[in-house]
């Protein structure tokens, strides 16, 4: 462990100097202070759910190394191989219901005439044009106080799926925060990030990417 630290420290110190950051040793102390036990955090700050108390046993004691193989034999006895029982058959029950719900939300959102907000590459800052769109959206939402809306954050296909989910959430929260600034009741708005998983345009060109980097408002029709 000590050896590893010293190996890592050398490039870190130089790297940090180059970047104008603090050195390695102070960084380690600082990160040590980062740690914060939050066993109560499971309940705190989460109004719905938290951490399940019903988790199947996932402990793993390690494999025996042979992977169930029996080795070669000069007079092999017959091994009967079972069918591929690793995976159960998927139940497609809810898929069609979900499709209907998405369609119903699209119709309700189109009827409301809500506008999308578009973002620059790698950015979650709302442009002047975006502010104008949100000002119009805010008027509609305020005049429909009984409506619940989902603020969706979307990204283009560049970059990783995981990091785009985080970026999409930042975009959705930017849009929500600006709507709240404009006087929309926070409880009317929830945020969801779809990252790059639900693009509106599938080509690998900038004209398509710019359409996908968007904040999109959806009128909730279900629960």
């Amino acid at each position, binding site marked *: 462990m000590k050896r590893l630290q010293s*190996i890592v420290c050398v*490039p870190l110190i*130089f*790297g940090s100097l180059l970047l104008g*950051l603090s050195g*390695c040793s102070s*960084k380690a102390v600082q*990160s*040590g202070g980062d*740690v*914060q036990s939050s066993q109560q*955090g*499971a309940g705190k700050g*989460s109004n719905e*759910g*938290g951490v*399940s*108390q019903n988790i*199947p046993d*996932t*402990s*793993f004691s*390690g*494999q025996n*190394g042979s*992977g*169930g*193989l029996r*080795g*070669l*034999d*000069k007079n*092999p006895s*017959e091994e*009967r*191989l079972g*069918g*591929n*029982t*690793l*995976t*159960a058959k*998927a139940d*497609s029950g*809810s*898929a*069609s219901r*979900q499709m209907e719900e998405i369609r119903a939300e699209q119709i309700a959102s189109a009827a409301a005439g809500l506008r999308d907000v578009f973002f620059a590459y*790698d950015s979650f800052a709302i442009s002047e044009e975006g502010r104008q769109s949100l000002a119009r959206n805010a008027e509609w939402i305020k005049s429909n106080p009984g409506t619940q809306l989902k603020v969706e954050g979307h990204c283009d296909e560049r*970059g*990783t*799926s*995981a990091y785009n*989910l*985080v970026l999409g*959430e*930042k975009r959705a929260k930017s849009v929500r925060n600006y709507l709240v600034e404009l006087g929309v009741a926070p409880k009317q708005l*929830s945020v969801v990030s*779809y990252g790059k*998983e639900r693009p509106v345009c599938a080509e690998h060109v900038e004209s398509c990417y710019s359409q996908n980097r968007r904040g999109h408002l959806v009128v909730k029709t279900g629960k």
Partner: protein
Amino acid sequence: MTFRIVVFISLCLSVGLAWIIESGATDVFLEATRPDFQKIPLGVAGIENSGGADSPAGRIRLGNRIEEVLKADVRRSQVFSLIDLPSIGIKVGSLGAVPDPEFKKAAEQGVSVIVWGKAGMTNDAKDPDVNMDGYVYDAGNDEMVGGKRYAGATSVVRLMAHRFADELVFRYTGEPGIARTKIAYVSEQGAARELFVMDYDGYDARQLTADGFLNLMPKWSPDRRFIVFTSYRNRNTQNIDMIELATGKRWTLVSLSGLNITPALSPDGNFLAFASSHEGNSELYSLDTRTKAMQRLTVHAGGDLSPSWSPSGRELVFTSDRSGGPQIFLMSMDGTNVRRLTFEGDYNAAPAWSPRGNWIAYVCRSPKKEYKICLITPDGQKRVQLTSGPGVDDSPSWSPDGRHLVFSSTAGGKSQIYMINADGKDLERITFTGTHNSAPTWSPAS
């Protein structure tokens, strides 16, 4: 930064490989991954159809099918080099005495191992029974050193070849092989993304979820029984669910408010590391699956995500944008000793720690602004760009033997899944159907 040697393998892979060889391997390499490891020359002298061409086996070319699967497994093993026996003048098929005199001829030409066999099928139109015999000749011993005899339904024909290939790897390395491993991945189904599991070579895909929502970023439990993933089934939060493969039974493990993503179970299965935004921005947490105690690992205004465990389970590598664009960081499993690992480029994400410990694979943005797969050693001393060319590469995941990676790429237009050797050779596309396949994750060895 002259001491930070960076090697970009773009067109000329040999440059990078030569450099790795020159710089020497670290002590965590096992023999078969050492750069100077000589692959064992192996030839397949035919898997014949029992009873000839007009037999039930012959009519469906059963032996030929098993032989094809076996040869592909041998080639992918990285333990053997597959020698085409006819091309060096060795007759295959219709073996006489065992071992056949031809084997000795092949041995004189440097072939170390020769395998052959036969496959048969019962004449039962509805539910035929398949059997396969496989034998191994070792040139060093100059004798048939052993064989295997398998039987089963027609649905296990490929498995017979895979299992025999794994026995060969086990015999010559003591490792269980990867031919029976699986790859879980995400496939687009209309507006939904559902989980699938397929064999490591892309065959026999099975659908795991079918709920119509987004199901993202699957990861295996170390015992291969479960897959943890992010589910959008609860509309208000994005939860971490777990599904049991054998039964399809599903649990919600984490339903904190906001976005709960990138779960990863520790090598001992006792901790679930994941990212959650329930306290504001995305932070990393660790959940003890036995006590259900949750510990926050990161505290930073930047986003932290994508944890991947070291093989020892003592450290985590993860993505953080605390210094601007996303970069790769390391820390101890309790959140202490955080240090930045990547300094090349302004976008590095989705790290995956090799099961051998010696490399961390991740997505790097190249100087040409292409998203490619890179490898870096955990001490940051060596870095190589593994893939090149157009398309967005994502989600690298290691084979349990540490010799291969799978990843998704849009190089061919639509996102599909590819396999590549850890040395950058033998790029192979393994999914061909579907409009969008992504987030591949390689199972542990059985």
